[in-house]
Every structure is written in C-alpha cells, then in structure tokens.
C-alpha cells in the first residue's frame, strides 16, 4: 500500500492544505521480505527525487508531497525496529525454557498449536520470527507489545507536533498487521511519560484502514482458507476495542475475483503483485489527509467503505466514482504520459527540441543518462511505476487504467481523446514536444532537475486540458 501511495504522490495527487509531508513508518519484522525491499527502494528514490525537484512550498506537481525517513539517523530505512526477534524462535523470545509452573502452563495453553513448515507441523514455540508471524496474530501481539520504550517509537513521538495526523494501514487476516494495529493504537491513545509528547499522541487525529482478505494463497504452510474466520474474529474485537478510538476507519477487501498467490511465509520469495485493493487503500490515506479537522475530530463516528460506480470484471478510470476519479485520474494520467515520453521519445528529442537546448539551463544527453545522477534515480522509480501498473493490470480484478502499446493519446483506457479537427493537427509525441517547447518559455532558469520535471508537469497538464474532456 505504501508503494501505491508513493506512486500516487509521485504523480502529484494533492493531499490538501492540511498535509505537506508524509512520514512512512513500516512495522515488519521480516527484514528480507522482497515486497518490503521493493517498497523501501521506492521510498528512497522518491525522497531523493523530491529533494531535487521541489522548488518551494507553492510547488504543485510530480513528487510534490515530501516523504521522510524518520529513522535516517539510526540507519533504519523507514522501518521501526522490533527488538529481540532476529535469530530467535518465539519460545526463546518469551523465555519458555526458563518458565515454570503456572507461567509455563499458560504459555502452553496459549501457544500450543502447530504451524506448517514445509508441509510438516512445527510447534508455534519453535517458529523462527525473522520472517514475521506467518498468519499468527497471537504471536504478533506478544512480540509487538514493545512500543513503550522502543527507541524508534520514541523518535516518532519526539518528532510529533500539533496538527500532525496518524494513519495506520494493516491487513486483518495476517499476523503482523492484525496484531500490531490494535497494539499500536492502544499505545498511542494511552501514551504516557516517559514517551515524548504523550498529550499530543493521545489526542492526535488517527485514521486507519484495515484490509480484509483480497487474495488467496496456493496450497502451503499458510492457509488462506482461515482468512475469513480470522477476519471475523478480528472485526468483532475491533468493534469494541479499536473503532471507538479512531477518528476515521476505512475498510477494503475483495472476497471474490482473487488470484492465488504463491504461498511464501516471507523472505525474498514474498513478492506479491500490486493489486487494485492496495491502490484503493492508498487513496484512503489521501482521503483522511484531506478531511478538515472538524469533520473527523470526534472519535468512533466515521467509517467508510469503497465502492465502484459501475463494477465490471475489468476496472479503469471510466468505471470509478466521480470522487475517486477527480482524486486520481488527472495526476496518474499525467505521470503515465510523462513516463511514456521518457521511455519512447526522450532520447530522440533531447538536444534537438528547444525545450532541451534553449535557455541557460539545458537538458543535455548527459543529464538523461540512465546510469548516473538524478535521471538514474528517476528512471529506477519509473521502472517501478511501470511494474506497478502492469502488475495491477494482470491481477484480479484487473485495474487497467492505461492501454499498453497504444499511441499516447489513445492510451487512457476507455477515455478517448477529443477528435482532431484536421489531419495536420499535431498528435502524440509531436504534440507533447510542442507543449514542452511552450512550457520552456515560461519556466525560467531553475536548476536542471526542477526544470526537467516542471516541463513535464506543464506539458502533460496541457495535453489533458486540450485533448480530453
């Protein structure tokens, strides 16, 4: 979901006047998770690009919202460190071996089950936690109950200022998210000294999205057949213990139309394709950010679900509701045009078109070298963007906002460009170059990176305003 949020923010989706910065904090003990690695790479690249292209508070456009790694000083990459889990089994974590009497009996009662491990049953107490809690929230809620006193949590609390908002994203059917969400909320709402800024945390505007099952797993150690029963149990718990403390609660899920993902418990093999549900979940963050404080200040009152105007088996912008469309269609399309131009036309136009070689600050062939400097980072981010779009299109239900292989002006699915009055009228990349050249006149001479991105901000906006309704 953070990946989807980053893509939306990269495309310039506006979070409204309340929010100018997002501080993603990932809570996941599975350090080697491939999805996590991809997400961290995206966040790092986003941050690097934002730092180069944003000229000031009034800047609007691609990468406008700052995303910050709160734990840069401690060397963590957006991750809150969960202490004492690496290289340990759950039994070692709770000191099962040294427990005696009623304490041991209680542990046996609570954690006596087995977890499949490569097809063979393995006691929960012997489970390696380095790859997460593998669908066992009861383990998660023990291990994650360490926010109080956690150095990274204190860093977060210390940096928290009045007006900041918190949004918690979690899945309800797994281990880490299902267990961590209520604990995290409890630690926020009951914050007390020595946690820094306890009063601010207690009274913070907190929103959350809980992601209900939206995929299934192939046969393996984790049983997706249990997802629904786990979800029901958790929802029942949330009803009384979670929902009343939230300023907004969002629900999303997709029971049918789900792909069967590979059954990987974690680590480098866990690489699930991007999904429309994650995209919608990312929009909930933006929706929450955009709400005026007086709309969400009362806790336990605001609960939301997501709907599609005309659901079909394939989703594109045309079937989304008006509110969703107005939030994401324009920025995502602009970014899609931008990426398409970079992939297919940039090298042909650089050094040739006036937008590239006019004025004091020029966009040179050196600048667009994909193996060095700013463009390398941008190129890497854009590859992930393309991957994200492709994966959502291949998933179920498919979200296909753009038609692969189509000409620029025909590439928005089910949204044709206005018909051209004359065959001589400029089309596609010629039109793009025309608007880039027009934009170049108005930009002045900011640093190269700012000029480059602003050219495309303006040109893509012009294509949309001139050629689409």
């Amino acid at each position, binding site marked *: 979901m953070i990946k989807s949020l980053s893509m939306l923010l990269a495309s310039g989706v506006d979070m409204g006047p309340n929010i100018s910065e997002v501080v993603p904090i990932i809570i996941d003990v599975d350090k080697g998770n491939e999805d996590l690695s991809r997400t961290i790479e995206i966040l790092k690249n986003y941050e690097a690009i934002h730092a180069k292209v944003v000229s000031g508070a009034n800047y609007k456009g691609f990468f406008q919202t700052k995303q910050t790694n709160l734990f840069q000083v401690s060397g963590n990459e957006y991750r809150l460190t969960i202490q004492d889990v690496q290289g340990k089994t759950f039994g070692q974590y709770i000191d099962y071996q040294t427990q005696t009497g009623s304490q041991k009996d209680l542990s046996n009662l609570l954690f006596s089950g087995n977890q499949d491990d490569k097809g063979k049953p393995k006691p929960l107490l012997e489970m390696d936690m380095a790859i997460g809690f593998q669908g066992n929230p009861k383990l998660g809620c023990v291990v994650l109950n360490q926010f109080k006193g956690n150095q990274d949590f204190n860093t977060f609390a210390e940096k928290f200022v009045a007006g900041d908002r918190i949004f918690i994203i979690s899945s309800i059917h797994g281990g880490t998210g299902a267990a961590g969400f209520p604990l995290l909320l409890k630690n926020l709402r009951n914050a007390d000294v020595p946690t820094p800024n306890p009063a601010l945390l207690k009274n913070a505007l907190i929103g959350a999205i809980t992601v209900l099952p939206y995929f299934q797993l192939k046969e393996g150690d984790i049983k997706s057949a249990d997802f629904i029963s786990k979800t029901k149990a958790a929802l029942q718990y949330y009803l009384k213990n979670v929902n009343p403390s939230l300023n907004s609660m969002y629900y999303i899920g997709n029971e049918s139309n789900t792909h069967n993902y590979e059954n990987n418990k974690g680590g480098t093999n866990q690489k699930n394709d991007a999904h429309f549900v994650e995209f919608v979940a990312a929009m909930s963050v933006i929706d929450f950010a955009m709400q005026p404080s007086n709309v969400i200040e009362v806790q336990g009152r605001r609960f939301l679900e997501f709907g599609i105007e005309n659901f079909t088996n394939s989703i594109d912008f045309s079937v989304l509701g008006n509110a969703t469309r107005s939030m994401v269609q324009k920025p995502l399309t602009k970014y899609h045009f931008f990426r398409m131009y970079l992939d297919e036309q940039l090298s042909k136009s650089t050094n*040739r*078109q*006036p937008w590239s070689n006019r004025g004091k600050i020029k966009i040179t062939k050196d600048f667009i070298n994909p193996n060095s400097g700013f463009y390398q980072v941008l190129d890497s981010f854009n590859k992930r963007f393309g991957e994200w779009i492709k994966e959502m299109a291949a998933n179920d239900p498919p979200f296909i906002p753009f038609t692969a292989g189509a000409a620029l002006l025909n590439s928005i699915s089910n949204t044709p460009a206005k018909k051209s009055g004359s065959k001589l009228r400029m089309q596609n990349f010629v039109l793009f170059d*025309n608007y880039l*050249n027009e934009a170049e006149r108005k930009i002045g001479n900011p640093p190269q990176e700012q000029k480059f991105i602003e050219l495309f901000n303006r040109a893509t906006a012009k294509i949309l305003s001139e050629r689409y309704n």
Partner: protein
Amino acid sequence: MGTIYCWFESLFGQDLAEHLWGWDMSTQDYTKGNHFNSIGSVLVLVTLFMVVLFYYIINHPRFNHWWSWILVLIINSGMNFLYGWKLTLSDLSNNLISDDLMYIRDVTTNAIVTQKITESNCVNFGIANATLAAILFLIFSFMLRWWSRNCSTCPIPN
C-alpha cells in the same frame, strides 16, 4: 537595392545591370524605372514570408532540424531564382531592353555585330537573385527565430 545586386554584376553582366537600373536609350538617362527596387522588394517580401511561414506558421516540432531549414531556404531561393530569371527573360523576349544595351552594331550598316545580353545573362541574374534570397533568409532567420515556440533553435541552437 541595385547597389547590392551589383555585387553580382560580374555574374549577370553590366548591360543587364544597366537595363535593370532603368536605362533608356531614347532619353539617354535612367528613366525606365528601377527594376532592382521592384525585384528586390519582391525578394524581401517573399523571403520574409518564407521565414515567417517556417518559424511561426508551420512552427512544427518535427521541422526543428537544420535540414528542414535548408529545405525552406532552397525553396525560397528557387522561387526568387524563377522570378529574377523569368522577369529578365521576359524583357529580353519582348524587346524591352534598350538597343544600345542589347547589341553592338556596325556603325555604317547598323547590322548587329554582337548580342550583349542573352538568355544566359537572365539565368545568371536568377542565380544572383537566388543567392541574395538565401543570404536574406539567413539574416531574417537569425532576426526572427527567437520567438518561435518550436523552431527557435533552428538551424543552430541559441
């Protein structure tokens, strides 16, 4: 304007130049009207139009190449060549050039000894006109290209 044309006098001949200056044998003066001015005016207007056409009317991103500019320059020169050549050829064909410029005659028999202005002079004048058109196209291009959206860096980046 005639002075500029006369940089090329050695190309198209002094006699044709005299005709174009407006020499009239009957008045022994330049009373026929200065053709250089009219041809030159057409040259300036056509070239100016071609420059405006290239930079502001066509103004196309895919025409932002030196070879596109050269192409328009050649078309402009070609049109001015045709104009200069045909205009002088017409004067030649219609006997509008003064006899003393056209021929050397025998003083006793008045027979034509030599024809001083021939069709090749007209062709050469066309070439001179085309050359001037190319030079003017270059000058106008560098004067006017700056404000063109898509072609201001043509033929060379600014």
